[in-house]
């Protein structure tokens, strides 16, 4: 295995709205509808939400590549420098060939979620729900874009990236978010954590991505995670 001698590096970036891929069909699908069965008022609201979302979105994301080698512990933990993550066996399995870990976080700000919440509680809950779903889709799509940037950077060193894994999913306790954020600059990308490890703004994604020449990316993560009770699997 080659080691390009990657040093500790932290990247913070702004992603433009037109760099991410969100369209009406994927939004309608994310709400459970088969496209043709979506009622007209919902379809119109989706189109309206996509037009209105752009000026309310401020996408800021970044990552830190830790300089230390990844060590796997028998207990289902992984260790990398000062981080000791109890990721569980599913994520540990996916990171077993990783040489380095990138810790990442990305947010779209709180303007859209605030607007969605006000509408949900007020006069137009349908639009509020659609805006909330739009915001969720935008942040996931923005995380895809950030992942792609990291993948391109890794390719320059002859390395690949794993899928991204977030505290709260695939058996990784959400409270470990505190360990992750402790390794990032304070208020990284404007994100803060509550005592119960929830991110603010809410429409944010954080986690780890493994890097190395022997790692693999799986387009269908449910194939390697056997959790039948995961809500993402049910969707």
């Amino acid at each position: 295995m080659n080691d390009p001698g990657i040093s500790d590096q932290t990247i913070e970036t702004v992603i433009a709205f037109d760099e991410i891929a969100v369209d009406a069909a994927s939004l309608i699908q994310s709400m459970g509808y088969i496209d043709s069965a979506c009622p007209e008022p919902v379809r119109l609201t989706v189109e309206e939400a996509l037009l209105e979302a752009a000026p309310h979105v401020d996408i800021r994301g970044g990552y830190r590549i830790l300089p230390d080698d990844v060590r796997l512990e028998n207990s289902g933990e992984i260790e990398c420098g000062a981080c000791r993550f109890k990721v569980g066996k599913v994520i540990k399995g996916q990171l077993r060939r990783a040489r380095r870990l990138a810790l990442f976080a990305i947010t779209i700000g709180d303007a859209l979620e605030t607007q969605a919440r006000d509408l949900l509680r007020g006069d137009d809950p349908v639009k509020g729900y659609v805006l909330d779903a739009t915001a969720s889709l935008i942040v996931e799509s923005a995380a895809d874009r950030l992942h792609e940037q990291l993948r391109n950077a890794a390719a320059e060193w002859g390395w690949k990236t794993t899928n991204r894994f977030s505290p709260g999913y695939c058996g990784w306790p959400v409270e470990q978010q505190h360990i992750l954020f402790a390794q990032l600059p304070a208020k990284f990308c404007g994100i803060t954590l509550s005592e119960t490890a929830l991110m603010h703004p809410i429409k944010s994604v954080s986690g780890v991505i493994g890097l190395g020449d022997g790692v693999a990316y799986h387009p269908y993560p449910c194939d390697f995670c056997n959790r039948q009770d995961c809500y993402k699997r049910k969707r």
Partner: protein
Amino acid sequence: MDQVLGQIAVCVERGKINMASPFPPDLAGQNGAEELTQSALDAGLSAEEILNQGLIVGMQKIGEKFRNNEAFVPDVLLAAKAMNAAMKLLEPLFKADANRFKGTLVMGTVAGDLHDIGKNLASMIIQGAGWKVVDMGVDVSTEKFLDAIKANEGCVVGMSALLTTTMANMEQTVRAIKEASPATKVIVGGAPLSQEFADKVGADCYCPDPQRGAEFLESLSAGA
């Protein structure tokens, strides 16, 4: 009389708010839940009859469709909007009657979890079934649930979790409630849950969908 109540139920189920609402297209230009409720009142029906035999029936039907994957969150929200429009006409008539609610449900998403769509849907359907819902929001600690039980004597508690990793917090909260207030009924829901989990943590009812919660609460009020 039965006919207008049936029409009200259809308008709620299909999210037809009033005559001005262009949707659903096959009902365009026709009276909606609002006008039909006014007609029913003008014809001498009581607010209680309209609520129980019209509005609640419509919400029940959309709840059943949601359970069967024949309707999705926006459809339930449209139905709730139609019901709320009608309720604005009925509320002044109910104000004097504090006993119009079948009971109180204290509802919240457990600590460490901020997913609230499922909780909100359940709240709407249960409200639509005639219960008062005290919504505690998301990331609700055990202490906050216990305080709410004290503040709402005789209430039922509903809680939801969407993450497998916050189910542990749900377990802790249910056990604490059962220890502090054994008579308090607890209903739980959320995508990763199962009947087995609900039994293990000592919950009284597992709700795979909001309608199941409404049915369980109905059984409590029927037995009271």
